[in-house]
């Protein structure tokens, strides 16, 4: 074997590692308002630029500009802001709860709140999301009970999933939230199948698939794209590009060339990139894509460009692989701060009201947590029935499992 390889392959590396100064100079940020608003039935091949540029509405100064602006009214914007604040407060509390041993694990969405919350506003009752573990915002946007979420996070006596699933792998059919899998990617093609079913059934429902930047490398991403481009069912396929996949930067899945949205072009699928930290932009793009689906115009691929400000999970410490200050250097800023600025600029909000809202939200979360903790936490005080693990694997429990249940109970 030749000991000095003539290197003819590359290993993608991020611009900056711990110790380096964060560097996003290679991330081009187009002007807000610069990208056009295409007709819903646009011929996909005309949409090339939308897959490479970034659709943005909120200017640095908080002004909303461009053809995509003004799709949400005041109440909706204020509600969205409060929901983002609620999600951030929940994250903070649950990270602490994990350190206290009340739960085994938690996944924060800090910095990405706008993506799920602004998108959900474009969906209707009956539609179905196929989420990842980092999209609690889809529930918060529908005022899903915080206490119920925490019951699941604490795996307590009232855990709607009876303790079976790891924290945050929620399931809420009534809220259009498909049971979250711990395996990456699998849900992306399931969303396409669900949308095919809606079409076959002649219903008016649509589906939304979700996947992370790193997970686009998984095979299920391809399966979803192939089935969606072949059958053109009513589905919106969302890629949440938060720049990181645990310790691996997005360039490893993207190959340092093009964009994730551009992967849709070869499938003849309208593909858009949006500023994921711009609440208005995310919603505008979601509205466009969901309308296409409802009108039977087929699937849309959306890349939400955002940044994972926190650790991958409570098991992860990002300082091991990226500069500490990288999050602050992220050029698209913070979704809450940006929407806040916009609302203040419009005279609908103020620092005082913001501080007050923050306090109220904190109380709401604390109250919900107190209530949830009454049902127990991983530390005790209430847990799902142990023998319930033998229930509900099948609609009807087969004999071999009945025998195991009996054996297990004999041990209790």
């Amino acid at each position: 074997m030749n000991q000095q390889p003539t290197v003819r392959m590359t290993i993608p590396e991020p611009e900056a590692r711990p110790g380096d100064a964060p560097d996003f100079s290679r991330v081009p940020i187009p002007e807000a308002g610069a990208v056009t608003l295409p007709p819903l039935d646009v011929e996909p091949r005309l949409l090339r630029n939308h897959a490479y540029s970034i659709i943005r509405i909120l200017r640095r100064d908080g002004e909303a500009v461009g053809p995509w602006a003004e799709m949400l009214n005041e109440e909706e914007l204020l509600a969205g802001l409060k929901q983002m604040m609620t999600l951030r407060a929940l994250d903070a509390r649950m990270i602490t709860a994990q350190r206290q041993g009340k739960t085994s694990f938690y996944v924060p969405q800090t910095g990405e709140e706008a993506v799920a919350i602004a998108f959900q506003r474009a969906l209707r009752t009956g539609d179905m999301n196929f989420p990842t573990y980092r999209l609690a915002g889809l529930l918060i946007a529908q005022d899903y009970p915080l206490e119920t979420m925490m019951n699941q996070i604490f795996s307590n006596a009232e855990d709607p999933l009876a303790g079976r699933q790891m924290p945050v792998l929620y399931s809420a059919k009534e809220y259009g939230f498909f049971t979250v899998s711990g395996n990456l990617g699998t849900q992306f093609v399931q969303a396409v199948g669900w949308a095919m079913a809606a079409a076959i059934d002649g219903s008016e429902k649509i589906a939304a698939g979700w996947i992370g930047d790193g997970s686009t490398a998984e095979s299920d991403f391809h399966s979803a794209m192939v089935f969606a481009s072949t059958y053109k069912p009513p589905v919106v396929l969302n890629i949440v590009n938060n720049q990181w996949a645990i310790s691996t930067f997005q360039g490893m899945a993207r190959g340092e060339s093009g964009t994730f949205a551009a992967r849709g072009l070869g499938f003849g699928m309208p593909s858009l990139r949006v500023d994921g930290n711009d609440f208005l932009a995310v919603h505008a793009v979601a509205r466009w894509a969901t309308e296409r689906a409802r009108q039977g115009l087929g699937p849309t691929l959306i890349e939400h460009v955002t940044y994972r400000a926190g650790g991958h999970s409570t098991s992860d410490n990002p300082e091991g692989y990226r500069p500490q200050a990288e999050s602050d250097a992220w050029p698209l800023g913070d979704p809450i701060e940006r929407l806040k600025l916009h609302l203040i600029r419009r005279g609908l909000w103020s620092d005082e009201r913001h501080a007050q809202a923050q306090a109220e939200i904190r109380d709401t979360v604390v109250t919900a947590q107190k209530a949830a903790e009454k049902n127990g936490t991983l530390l005790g005080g209430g847990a799902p029935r142990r023998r319930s693990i033998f229930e509900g694997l099948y609609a009807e429990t087969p004999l071999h499992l009945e025998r195991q249940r009996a054996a297990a109970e004999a041990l209790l």
Partner: protein
Amino acid sequence: MTQMTMIEAIRDGLDVMMSADARVIVFGEDVGYFGGVFRCTQGLQEKHGQLRCFDTPINESGIVGAAIGMAAYGLRPCVEIQFADYMFPAYDQITQEAARIRYRSNGDFTCPLVIRMPTGGGIFGGETHSQSPEALFTHVSGLKTVLPATPYDAKGLLIAAIEDPDPVIFLEPKRLYNGPFDGHHDRAAVSWAGHPSADVPAGHYTVPLGRAAVRREGADLTVLTYGTMVHVCLAAAEEQGVDAEIIDLRSLIPLDLETIEASVRKTGRCIVVHEATLTSGFGAELSARVQEACFYHLEAPVRRVAGWDVPYPHAQEWFYFPGPARVGRALLETVEA
């Protein structure tokens, strides 16, 4: 009553369910216009329309993944994997997703789904058209695994599988598609014509999942088998003049433990026969369970007759296939042990 091949029985079962229930959707590679490479879906697209029976891109994981989404929506997809050998790309969606939707969501979502696939060898298909992967499904909690040996059972079990609220793996022994096969490959092929279990009732009927069929009552020993090997075992018992009680399991999960245990307690001897490779095959589970439940009744070791632990060879497939000679010897040695 009509006489049908197993292919016709499967097609009829699909047709009956598609006619009765608009939620039943059939799709897979080449199953639409063409009607499937084994013709099991022939005519279904024409009769029920393109949205009820259609071709798919060649992506087994996509086929199953999409079907899971459809099942979660409330449809009853019944998909075809062209050969069981090609379920491997879908193994993640089958075992980590379909099998667990109900459990992990605590009943919030369910996954009523049937995955049909031709299984077994005997058609010179080599290592990629001959495998019997049933044990790779029986090890997975949340799946049901079914395997008919006759046209009558094929239709009845398929209808029961489609009506089942949980995911069912439906393995079709391709060597039985056109006729019962006793393992004597050197003799002229026999068709299903005139075979009693090729009499298939018209319309709707079910063969319940989890109930075995005693194909031959006997006193000397119990033979636990399924699929193609049912017919091989019947022939072997005949040829060796052994009074074997031959049990066609039909369903591996759920498993008919009572019938198995009662028979072995009666005969005191047991062999297990399947075409899949021996090591970690479903025969291991059967053997382990039999000696756990019937240890004090056993007068001889539970023997396994199975495919050898190598990939299914093309040219030597009849040396690989556990035919009447191998089964016969095991029968004799076990009754004489």
